[in-house]
C-alpha cells in the first residue's frame, strides 16, 4: 500500500534521528573535559610528582578544600630514592580550608597557625619522590568528592623558587552510591562516563628548549629536568610500577628524532641524561626549541618539567595531555 506523505515524513525523521545518534554522542563527548585529569580543577586524587628534601632543595605543599563540607584526606609519600617506600598520613580540612606544610618539617600542632588539620610527618633528608593525596571517608575508603586542589613550591637554600600545580584526578561522584574500595580504577573518560577516576592520558605533550641551548634572555646555559611517575601504584603490596616510555621529538624544522627508556617508580633527570642518548640536546636538534610527544606502551605516565638557567632561575611547569589510555591504570591503597 502506498504510504501517505505524513507517514513518509515521520519515517524519514525517525531514520534520520537514529542515524545521527552516534554523531550526537561524539559531539557531546567532544566538548567536555569535566572527566579529565586536570591541573586546575578540584579533584579526588592529587599527585605532586616532584617532592624533594635533599638538604639543598625543600618542598612546600599547599592543599585546599574547595567544597563546603569537611573532607578527609589520606596522603602517601612515595620515596623514589628508596625502592618506592611509602609513608602515609591523613588529615581533615573544614569547608574551604587551606593548609600548608613543608616537606622537611612536616606539620606539628601550632595553636595560632589555623585550624589544626592533623599531624603531618616530615620526610627524611634525601627524600626524592612524589606525594599522592586521596579524598576519603571516615573509614579511609576513597570518596569521589572532587574537593581538593594543590600546589607545590620547590625552594633551594639560596631562596630560588619554582612552583607547579598538583595533577588532580576527577572522581565520578555517581560511583559513591555504589560504594568504594581501596582499589581505584583510572578509567573515567568522556566516552566512558561510568568510569571511576580520570583515565591517564595517552600522550604527554612536552614543549621544551633544546638541552644546553643558550637562553634568549639570560645568556645562560638552559637545562630542563623531566619528572615522570607511573599512573598505576600498588601501595598495598609496595610493588613499584615500571614504565617504558617513548619520546617522539620534533625540532623546528619538523625533523623527527626518537628515544626510549624504562624506569621504575619515579624518574627525574635532566634532558642530557645518558638515557636520552643526546637526542634532546642542541647538538642533535640544531634548533632552539623542540616538541616531544611522550607515550608509554605499558600503562599511563604523568609528570612535569623544570627549567634551570646556569643551574639557577628554576621554573617548573605542568605538561599538557592528549587522549586517554586504552587500558585503565589502578591505584591500590593499603587496607585501612
Amino acid at each position: 500500500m502506498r504510504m501517505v506523505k505524513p507517514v513518509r515524513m515521520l519515517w524519514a525523521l525517525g531514520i534520520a534521528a537514529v542515524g545521527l545518534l552516534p554523531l550526537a554522542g561524539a559531539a557531546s563527548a567532544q566538548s567536555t573535559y569535566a572527566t579529565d585529569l586536570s591541573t586546575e580543577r578540584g579533584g579526588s586524587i592529587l599527585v605532586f610528582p616532584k617532592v624533594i628534601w635533599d638538604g639543598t632543595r625543600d618542598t612546600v605543599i599547599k592543599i585546599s578544600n574547595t567544597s563546603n563540607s569537611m573532607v578527609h584526606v589520606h596522603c602517601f609519600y612515595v620515596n623514589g630514592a628508596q625502592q618506592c617506600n611509602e609513608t602515609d598520613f591523613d588529615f581533615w580540612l573544614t569547608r574551604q580550608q587551606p593548609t600548608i606544610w613543608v616537606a622537611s618539617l612536616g606539620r606539628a600542632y601550632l595553636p595560632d597557625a589555623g585550624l589544626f588539620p592533623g599531624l603531618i610527618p616530615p620526610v627524611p633528608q634525601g627524600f626524592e619522590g612524589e606525594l599522592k593525596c586521596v579524598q576519603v571517608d571516615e573509614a579511609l575508603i576513597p570518596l569521589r568528592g572532587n574537593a581538593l586542589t594543590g600546589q607545590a613550591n620547590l625552594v633551594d637554600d639560596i631562596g630560588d623558587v619554582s612552583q607547579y600545580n598538583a595533577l588532580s584526578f576527577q572522581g565520578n561522584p555517581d560511583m559513591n552510591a555504589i560504594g568504594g574500595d581501596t582499589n581505584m580504577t583510572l578509567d573515567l573518560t568522556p566516552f566512558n562516563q561510568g568510569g571511576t577516576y580520570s583515565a591517564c592520558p595517552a600522550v604527554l605533550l612536552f614543549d621544551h628548549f633544546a638541552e644546553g641551548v643558550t637562553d634568549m634572555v639570560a645568556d645562560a646555559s638552559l637545562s630542563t629536568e623531566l619528572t615522570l611517575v607511573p599512573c598505576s601504584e600498588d601501595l598495598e603490596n609496595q610493588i613499584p610500577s615500571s614504565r617504558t616510555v617513548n619520546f617522539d621529538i620534533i625540532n623546528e624544522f619538523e625533523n623527527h628524532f626518537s628515544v626510549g627508556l624504562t624506569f621504575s617508580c619515579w624518574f627525574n633527570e635532566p634532558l642530557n641524561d645518558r638515557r636520552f642518548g643526546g637526542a634532546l640536546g642542541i647538538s642533535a636538534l640544531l634548533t632552539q626549541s623542540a616538541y616531544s610527544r611522550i607515550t608509554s606502551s605499558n600503562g599511563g605516565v604523568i609528570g612535569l618539567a623544570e627549567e634551570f638557567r646556569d643551574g639557577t632561575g628554576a621554573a617548573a611547569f605542568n605538561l599538557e595531555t592528549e587522549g586517554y589510555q586504552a587500558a585503565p591504570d589502578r591505584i591500590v591503597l593499603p587496607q585501612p
Partner: protein
Amino acid sequence: MSTMTANVRRTMLLGAVGVLALAGAATVVRADVASDKPGAILIFPKVVVDPSGVLGPLPGTDTELQLVNTSNSVVGAKCFIVNQTAHCSNNGLACTAANAAERCGSTGACVPPCSPNVAENDFSITLTKRQPISWKASEGLPNSQFPCSLNAGGPGCPGGQSNGTSSIPGVQEVPFIGEIKCVQVDAASFAPSTGLNPDNNFVGDLKGEATIVSAVTDDIDARKYNAIGLQSTGFNNGDLTLQLGGPDAEYNGCPKVITLNNYFDDAPVTTHRGAPPLTHVVRTDLTVIPCSEDFATQRPRGTTLQFLAFNEFEQRFSTSIGLSCFKEVTLSDIDSRPGPIGDAQSIFNFAVQGTLTGQTRIRPVASTGSDRRVLAITEEFWTTDSTTRSSAANTFFVPSSNGSDAGDQILLPFEP
C-alpha cells in the same frame, strides 16, 4: 486495527524515539578552559619587557614565548599583542599605580591602560605539522628567522611545507606589559577554525608557554606558566565574532569562578629543617584579563571582580575591585592603596589573617548579554635577606554551569 493504522503508529513511535534520543545525546556538557590541553584560542595573560625594573620588582626582565602546533596538519594562527602599559599623563613615562608619584610627579597621573581604547598589534603565522617555535617578546621573530620560511635559506621543512610569510613583531614599546591572544585559523583562508586533530577531538591544536626571565649579570630569576587554551566546541562559522560559551558557542566558555591557593602577603615561610633554616617573606601578584575582547572597535570590556578569601581558620573575608581591561596587582593592594602603605591592613595580608595561606575565590559580575568572565595567573615573589626570587602558576577554575550562560565574545578586526 488496520495495517495502515499500525504502520502509522510504528512510524510515529520510531520518529518520536529517534528525536528524543537525539535531543538527549546532543546535550553538550561544556567544560571550562584548560592550560593543560591544546586549544583553538591561546592566551598568554602576562607578557613583560622591563629592562629597568619600572613595572615590577626585578630588572632585566623579558618574556620568552613558546608556541607549538600539536597537530599533524598545517595550521594558522592570528595573534594579537595587547599593550596594557600605563603612562603618566604629563610626561608619557611608563608607570604603575604603585610608582605613580615617583614617575609622574605631583602634576601628573598614571593613566591606566585601555583608556580610552585598547591598543593592539596583530600578526599572522603559519605553523607546519607539529612545529614548535619560540621567540623573545622584545624582539619578536622576523620572517627570515622562521625555520621553514621561504626566505630562511635553511634546510627547509619536509614535504615542501613552509611558514609562508609568518612574522612576529616585537612588543610595541619598552617597558611593556600586556597580553597575547592567538586564534587558530585556517592556514589558507585565515578564518577562525576548529581544531584539526582527531586525537583530541578537534578541540584545538595550539599550546604554548611563557617564561618571564629576569637577568642582571649572573643574577638570574625565571618564572613560567602555561598559556591558557580555550577549546573549540566543534562548531565555527568562520566569522569575525568568536563566541565563548553561551548559546551557539564556538569555544568553551570561560570559568565562572577562579580560585587561588595563595600565601597571604608578607607570610613568613620557613623551610630547610636543620641549620640554617631559611625564612622567606612571600608576596603574590595577580594578573587578571577579561575573556571578552573587542579588537574591532578596541573598546575595553570591563567588569567588577568579587573576592572571597578564606584563611586556615575557615574565616571568610570579602572585597571587590573594578577591572577595565587588564589588572596586575599585588594581593594586598586589592583593598588598600597602591604600594606598601596600607598593606598591613589588607585582608590579603598575613598581618590581618594570621595564617600563612588562604583560598581565594574570584567571581566576575556578569552584565546583560555578557558573562564578563576573566582569566588570571599568579606570580609569587619570595624574599630572603639577600634575594628576591619568583615563581608563577596557573590558577584553578570552578567549573561553570554553562546552561544559562550568556557567554563572552572576542571580536576580530575586519581586514579588507
